[in-house]
């Protein structure tokens, strides 16, 4: 049994570097090498930084044909965390994202536009607060290769701006939009 596993592993290790073809990756939420962060204006004077602690997703990525890539991510909206329990409770309430009712936000890509130099536009549908709208994430490849523990990884950075009104989320004063900052590291399957 052990030998079979070892043999399979060795075979895979030998085959893996053969060609940089499309591969499937799972976002490394287990090791927390990925994060979904948001930034909202506070009174127009500064920004509040928060994140969603629980999410999962996978993607397919081919460095030689970025436009063939695709990704889907599910975010547990009840995991919103801005490092302030009372504020988080308020944002999760029916006044804002209504996480009790809309407990999952999903993003599914529909198109990738290669902009060269490892940058690309990731276009897809974001379902949030019961509303589905197309969004564009400006993304770039940060790096790719072997990790020290026998796996292979690729990582990206992406940003996008969400207008709260688009998702029927209450706008309060200057806080009409949210800037999302996404760090995504995937482990090759």
């Amino acid at each position, binding site marked *: 049994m052990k030998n079979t596993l070892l043999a399979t592993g060795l075979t895979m290790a030998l085959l893996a570097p053969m060609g940089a073809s499309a591969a499937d990756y799972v976002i490394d939420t287990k090791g927390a090498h990925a994060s979904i962060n948001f930034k909202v204006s506070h009174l127009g004077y500064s920004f509040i930084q928060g994140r969603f602690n629980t999410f999962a997703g996978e993607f397919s990525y081919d460095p030689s044909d970025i436009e063939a890539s695709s990704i889907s991510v599910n975010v547990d909206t*009840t995991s919103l965390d801005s*490092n*302030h*329990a*009372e504020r*988080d*409770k308020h944002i999760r309430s029916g006044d804002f994202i209504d996480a009790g009712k809309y407990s999952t936000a999903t993003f599914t890509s529909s198109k990738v536009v290669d902009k060269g130099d490892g940058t690309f536009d990731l276009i897809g549908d974001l379902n949030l607060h019961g509303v589905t709208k197309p969004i564009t994430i400006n993304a770039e490849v940060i790096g790719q290769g072997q990790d020290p523990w026998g796996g292979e990884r690729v990582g990206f950075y992406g940003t996008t701006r969400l207008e709260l009104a688009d998702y029927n989320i209450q706008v*309060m004063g200057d806080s009409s939009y949210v800037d999302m900052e996404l760090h995504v590291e995937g482990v090759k399957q």
Partner: protein
Amino acid sequence: MKQEVKNYNLVARLIHWLSALVIIGMFAIGLWMVDLSYYSEWYRTAPHWHKSVGILLAVLTIFRFIWRHITTSPKTEGSAFERVVARVVHGVMYLLLITLFVSGYLISTEDGRSIDVFNLFSVPGLGALFEGQADISGEIHFYTAWALIIFAAVHALAAIKHHVIDKDNTLRKMIGVSK
């Protein structure tokens, strides 16, 4: 053997009426403050006062239990059935009050922040004790507050019934003017 008394003692009466006043006020302010706009000048002050008063009332209530234990209370009047109901209603009101203290504390301390009491002192937060603490505690706090107000109304109506219809000392002994 403790001596029988006709009235509740002064301290017990003061605590009773002060608690009544505070609980009704806290209920009203609680309902009002959760709907305040972020830009309201009360948005920060009202919850700060609500939490401060809540902590102080919790301290007062703990003292009340001790005081009740070490002093003598007058007998409950009414039929055997009424006396049992009175006992149950009083017990439930105390339980609801304790539930309010605990749930209120848990809303504000999930992130480990302490609760400032009128900038006099602060009660340390214990952090997250269970999943979804602030949200769940908030729901419990809301429904418990309503339950307490309903029980308090029943309690008040019963006292008025005893005073007006039975013409006994139920209400009088809490004012200190038993016949």
